[in-house]
């Protein structure tokens, strides 16, 4: 079993930067809250209390209302100070070991039959068709296009809200600038969504990859004949590499706390070929090593085999598509 390891340096810096950004945002938010509350108390509540103390209190003004708003201003001030203060310490705390692996085994009580787990089933990004001769045909059709539509629609909504906010807060005074500064992280997310949509659109223009495997179920220690074909405009890709991979996945927790770890422990190149209008297809033999495990899937664990198609493109994002396979013993 793998032991716990320290956080990789690059990830550690990224996490620290993220924590520092959140702390800064929290501090600015808390300080603004405290500042505005303090200002309201100083400019409105305090003069009213002075008038009350000197007996210059008009009959229109109610002491109860004054007490209520004073308490409210002080409450907001204290809340703002607490939020600002709480942001100072946590980002300096050391990072936990990564990956934080908790190992589980059977409890000491008798094992009971498990209820069926009703969860969202995994959706593969490729179409699978079982043919009469025992072969299986996979197609990458519409893989990235659907993702592009989803991200683009969400990005439009997100950026629309940000645009409306910027338009409302736009102004020359300090409060406007502060509000715009607070919106900056959300605007950065919007820019990221826009970038992701553009990337997915570019990748969605890649031609479709079709793979046929005979027999469709790969046997450990056995071989299957693989044919692949680029349909659409093969000029966009310069070469195609097919890799066979095996990985294990383990899911821990449930609901929002659910985390999945995966580990790829086998990868081999099945085929590597340049692509063009004259040679948009190829053949290869896939061999699954006999010493590895067949496909396995339970509620929280999986041994997954997949063919990964990597298409290189000139001046365009590369294509990377996993095609799930079933490997039997």
């Amino acid at each position, binding site marked *: *079993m*793998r032991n716990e390891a320290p956080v990789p340096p690059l990830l550690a810096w990224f996490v620290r930067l993220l924590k520092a950004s959140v702390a800064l945002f929290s501090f600015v938010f808390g300080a603004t809250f405290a500042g505005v509350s303090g200002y309201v108390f100083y400019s409105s509540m305090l003069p009213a209390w002075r008038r009350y103390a000197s007996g210059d209190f008009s009959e229109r003004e109610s002491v109860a209302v004054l007490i209520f708003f004073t308490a409210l201003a002080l409450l907001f001030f204290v809340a703002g100070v607490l939020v600002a203060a709480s942001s100072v310490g946590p980002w300096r705390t050391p990072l936990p070991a990564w990956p934080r*692996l*908790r*190992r*589980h*085994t*059977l*409890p*000491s*009580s*008798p*094992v009971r*039959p*498990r209820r069926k787990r009703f969860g969202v089933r995994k959706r593969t990004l490729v179409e699978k068709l079982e043919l009469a001769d025992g072969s299986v045909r996979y197609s990458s059709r519409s893989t990235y296009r659907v993702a592009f539509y989803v991200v683009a629609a969400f990005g439009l909504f997100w950026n629309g809200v940000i645009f409306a906010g910027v338009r409302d807060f736009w102004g020359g005074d300090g409060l406007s600038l502060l509000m715009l500064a607070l919106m900056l992280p959300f605007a950065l997310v919007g820019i990221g969504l826009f970038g992701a949509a553009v990337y997915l659109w570019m990748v969605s223009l890649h031609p479709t990859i079709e793979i046929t495997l005979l027999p469709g179920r790969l046997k450990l220690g056995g071989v299957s004949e693989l044919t692949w074909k680029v349909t659409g405009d093969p000029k966009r890709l310069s070469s195609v*590499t097919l*890799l066979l991979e095996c990985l*294990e*996945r*383990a*899911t*821990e*927790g*449930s609901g929002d706390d659910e985390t999945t*770890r*995966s*580990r*790829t*422990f*086998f*990868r081999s*190149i099945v085929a590597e070929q340049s692509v063009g209008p004259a040679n948009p297809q190829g053949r290869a033999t896939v061999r699954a090593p006999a*010493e*590895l*495990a*067949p496909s*396995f899937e*339970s*509620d*929280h*664990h999986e*041994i997954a085999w997949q063919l*990964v198609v*990597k298409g290189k493109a000139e001046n365009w994002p*590369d294509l*990377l598509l996993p095609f799930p396979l079933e490997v*039997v*013993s």
Partner: protein
Amino acid sequence: MSALEVRLARKEWLPGQRLQGEVIWHLSSGDASTLALKLLWYTEGVGNVDTGIVAQVPVSAAGADGRQTFAFELPQAPLSFQGGLFSLCWCVEVADERTKECARESFTISPRGKPVDLASHPDLATTELWSC
């Protein structure tokens, strides 16, 4: 406190073989009618524990003390393996449904006897995929 024990003819089995063993019990009260034998697999390691009960039979003999042989037809899958994140293990469990006490004896199902070793294969980073 009862004493339950499962003994297997051997620890390494091939897929499809007939697993044979013996269950021994010394119950503090009651008799063996509340005992059940289960053939099951479970996951161990990272992730929530998954289990699968493949077969379950009651202990047919009577009495507070006794022993009984049993046999299970082993399935072809899943095979025992030891991965870097999790392992798949097999065991026979005898459980007293009344007192919730149980005893287990683990074994392996593998074409080579030993569990398939996936843990010794190094973790291949995703970044290497781009350099292929």
